[in-house]
């Protein structure tokens, strides 16, 4: 009898296998890699897949002469201009159009050259992402240098409402009209499916790599922007109120535990961004400025933290500066208190 049952199962499985149809043509149209010589870069190229934007961090020489990037694409896809063609930044052609192997889909990538001009932010200009309605701050010159966990949270089925996201603008400002507000929120049912019960509010100088958002979240937050100079102090203003109940990764309340915020700047060498796995302990780090006490501050409080330098930096050295802030210090491990609120305004890196 058992044998017979097995036979039926085998027949059924076999018949299902026989029904497999031909594979669909590849409908994907990604630029997967965008490679230029490292000597032309002040930081690694970032392909912002969520916003179809290639963000370039170029040396002044590379910007003046143009670049000839080599591209790799989704299997079978084609691109114009072609891989290896030169692009110049004075001609205004700043986009790539990729056509999928199936011919059905086209994806247009904008090319943006990013420069951090002033190391001073008042968070007065905010944009809203069209698709998901989360906010992000832009610099005075409209460059996108700050990022946050918002793009990842957008994929977790939160409401399409700026206030549903942990990072947003607030009129509760120290200076000017707006400040950056970070509020730790609960996870969604969907984020629970990948084991995430809490989203800490965060913002950081750097980029968010959506590809790693769920599988390797600590590597999704890539911290840092190209920096030149000798930093002295990290200054700014903040307010902080921890949420009522601290919870661990599994969502269990830990009685007596009080959430705290994190605000810090890290200077490191190289062009490849550090992420949440190595921002505190990489041997590329040359200087740090940590807010020493992340406890509650009801009123606007100024901080002025001198950089602890391991050594003096060389003027020709390629350096990156990260600034990271979170409304829950252990939010990168999905621990914290829902409702913890950090407000930041008037940040500055003061150089020699």
């Amino acid at each position, binding site marked *: 009898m058992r044998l017979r049952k097995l036979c039926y199962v085998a027949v059924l*499985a076999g018949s299902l296998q026989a*029904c497999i149809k031909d*594979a669909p043509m590849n409908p994907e149209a*990604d630029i997967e890699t965008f490679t230029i010589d490292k000597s032309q870069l002040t930081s690694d190229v970032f392909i912002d897949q969520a916003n179809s934007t290639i963000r370039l961090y170029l040396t002044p020489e590379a910007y003046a002469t143009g670049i000839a990037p080599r591209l790799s694409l989704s299997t079978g896809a084609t691109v114009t201009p072609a891989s290896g063609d030169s692009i110049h930044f004075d001609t205004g052609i700043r986009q790539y159009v990729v056509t*999928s192997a199936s011919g059905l889909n086209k994806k247009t990538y904008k090319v943006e050259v990013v420069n951090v001009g002033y190391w001073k932010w008042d968070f007065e200009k905010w944009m809203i992402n069209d698709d998901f309605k989360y906010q992000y701050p832009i610099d005075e010159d409209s460059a996108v240098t700050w990022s946050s966990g918002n793009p990842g949270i957008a994929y*977790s089925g939160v409401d399409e409402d700026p206030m549903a996201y942990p990072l947003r603008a607030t009129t509760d400002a120290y200076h000017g009209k707006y400040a950056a507000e970070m509020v730790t929120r609960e996870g*969604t049912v969907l984020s629970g*499916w990948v084991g995430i019960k809490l989203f800490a509010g965060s913002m950081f100088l750097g980029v968010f790599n959506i590809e790693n958002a*769920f599988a390797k979240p600590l590597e999704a937050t890539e911290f840092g922007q190209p920096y030149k100079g000798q930093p002295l102090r990290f200054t700014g203003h903040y307010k902080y109120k921890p949420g009522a109940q601290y919870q661990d990764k599994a969502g269990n309340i830990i009685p007596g535990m009080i959430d705290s915020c994190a605000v810090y700047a890290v200077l490191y060498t190289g062009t490849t961004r550090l992420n949440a796995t190595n921002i505190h302990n990489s041997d590329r780090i040359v200087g740090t400025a940590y807010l020493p006490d992340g406890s509650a501050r009801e009123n606007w409080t100024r901080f002025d933290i001198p950089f602890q330098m391991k050594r003096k930096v060389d003027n020709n050295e390629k350096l990156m500066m990260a600034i990271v802030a979170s409304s829950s210090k252990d939010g990168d491990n999905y621990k914290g208190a829902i409702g913890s609120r950090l407000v930041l305004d008037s940040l500055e890196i003061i150089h020699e």
Partner: protein
Amino acid sequence: MNIKMKGLLAGLLLAAGQLSAQQTYKTSDFKPHLEHRIVAGFNFGATAPAGLPNTIRKINSYWPEFSPSLGYELAYRITPKWGAALGVKLDYKGMSTKDEVLYFPTIITTDDGGTFAGDFSGKNKTTVRNAYVVFPLSATFAPNNKWRFNLGGYAAWLFSSNFYGSVSDGYIRNGGPTGGKVIIDHATFDFGTDVRKFDIGLQGGALRKVGNKLEVMGNLNWGLRPVFANDFKGLDFPLYNIYLTLGVAYKI
């Protein structure tokens, strides 16, 4: 000529009918009667699409879940060969499968109002185990006293549902093939509460006598109503309950 032919045909049919009626009358002292059976068995099959869509690239494995079926059948034998049967049974219909998909469109809506639409490529494992109260109704035909065949339909009410699984080793693209790609190492899903409460379908099979009161049984049940409602977009193709019950019947 035509009329003659028709007349002849009608005559023949009439004669044949009378002959068979006489035979029945002669060969048995048959009286219409009721038969009661307890039927028990296991369901083997799948909650599956009627044809596999091209987004399913590979079925790596399949196994039936523990899916017992237990019920009672009341049959009414009108003539020695023909009759009708009505049953009530408790049917578990379940299976598990591991497969690999490519650009598999899904729209997931969750209780907290969250929604995600995108295409998944990677591995999938799904377990289905739904329990129904089923009312099968059949016409029965018994050509001899060893065999009885039945064919009819069924109506089934769901009383417990499981439809869950995981996806792994792949990625999902938000919104479709050109959306942002997010690697999925492992994520679980649960569509149990989306399973429809009511199913109807066709069913047919056979009983074969193996003892005084004991018969072995095989019955195919083919659902005609998709297991998920049309507004469910977790899968972009309908699934049907297609299960074979193998078991025994005991006359009481």
